[in-house]
């Protein structure tokens, strides 16, 4: 029984989520391991979400937002870029595998890119194996 990763996807409403919808309507196939949560903007993401997601058993976390310069709220993703970069450095320094947390800019018209990124990311998590460092053991 091969390992089925649990991947948390956090997608911004205006770009990435719409892009994911587009992937769906154009019947693009991608692995179903990703559980997508919609936020209005990538800057809604509190870095504690990422840490907590790993504690609650996520094997990988994928964040998607609008391309810098194209944020629906003008500047949200520019703050998010800095904030999530720091979160990534924290995870790296504490010893979490860096490949488990990824940030991608995916626009509403990039259904292809969404499917590609999810496929690639799922394969990567599969090769990294189950996440045991942060996961809270019952």
């Amino acid at each position, binding site marked *: 029984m091969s390992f089925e990763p649990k991947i948390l996807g956090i997608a911004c409403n205006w770009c990435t989520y719409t892009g994911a919808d587009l992937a769906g309507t154009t019947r693009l196939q991608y692995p179903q391991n990703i559980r997508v949560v919609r936020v209005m903007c990538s800057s809604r993401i509190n870095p504690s979400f990422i*840490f*907590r997601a790993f*504690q609650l058993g996520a094997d990988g976390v994928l964040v998607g937002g609008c391309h810098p310069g194209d944020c629906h709220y003008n500047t949200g993703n520019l703050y998010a*870029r800095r904030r999530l970069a*720091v979160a990534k450095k924290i995870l790296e*320094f504490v010893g979490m595998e860096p490949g488990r947390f990824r940030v991608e800019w995916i626009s509403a018209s990039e259904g292809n890119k969404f499917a590609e990124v999810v496929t690639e990311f799922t394969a990567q998590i599969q090769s990294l194996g189950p996440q045991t460092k942060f996961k809270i053991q019952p």
Partner: protein
Amino acid sequence: MSIDFRKIEDNLKKEARRLLEAQKVSLVLAYGKGFDENHPMPFVARNVSDVDCIVFNEYCSANLARYLVRYPRGTKIAVAVKAADSRTVVQLIQEDKVKREDLVILGIPVYGMKDPKTGEVIDNKTTCGLYNPVLYDVLLGEEVHGQPVLSPYDVLAEYEAMDQDARWAFWQKEFERCIRCYACRKACPMCYCDPCFIDQNKPRWGEKSPELPGNLMFHLTRFHHLAGRCIDCGECSRACPMDIPLYLFHKKIAKECEEMFGQAAGMKIEDKPVLINFRMEDSDKILE
């Protein structure tokens, strides 16, 4: 050159007396005698008669700038600061917690400070490594020149070289020892949030009990909240009863923020803290 602690103490007393007599400030944040010579305490002088109780020696490691946010806005305060402490003042001004015109900054150029709990010398390994205050109104001693300029990030080399599993094993062992006394939070001058995120229960960000899951949430989130704001005074690690090397993590994040965003915390009062700022030219490379 060696540091004349006596002279600094005399100058500190002189300035405090002058400021209080002329009523330029309501209080002077300085150091006073503790239960013995090697354990001075932070001391607040409110009248000229209090000035005689002021001391300054190599054990005065406490960061007095953390007391600035305790007083109502507009209170005129004089504060004695060493290099890292002066960066705290700059950072607090950047964040609009105090106004520059309400402060009289008494700068102390010094090296060779010692940790009162262990007697160890405090240097760039556990603190920011600067000798001279970055902002001051009065300098209480001679500016330090000729001392080796050391990077505060040298101590990270050993940990950056570890592979991630070894690093995880290291931090897991350290954070398991945390008893959640929150001395680090209270010792930190930049931790002034009321309520602190960890005290909230809607939502509950981390478990209350002193075990690894809650400890990880508390510390990792706190490292994030201090990103680009930590001025590397080392007080958190000195306050920790379990000797957890928090300064290593804070230094690492400070180093990354300097590299990614081109700005160190607490250097110029015109700066904007890095996480409430952005540049269009920020590179996507920082996310790799």
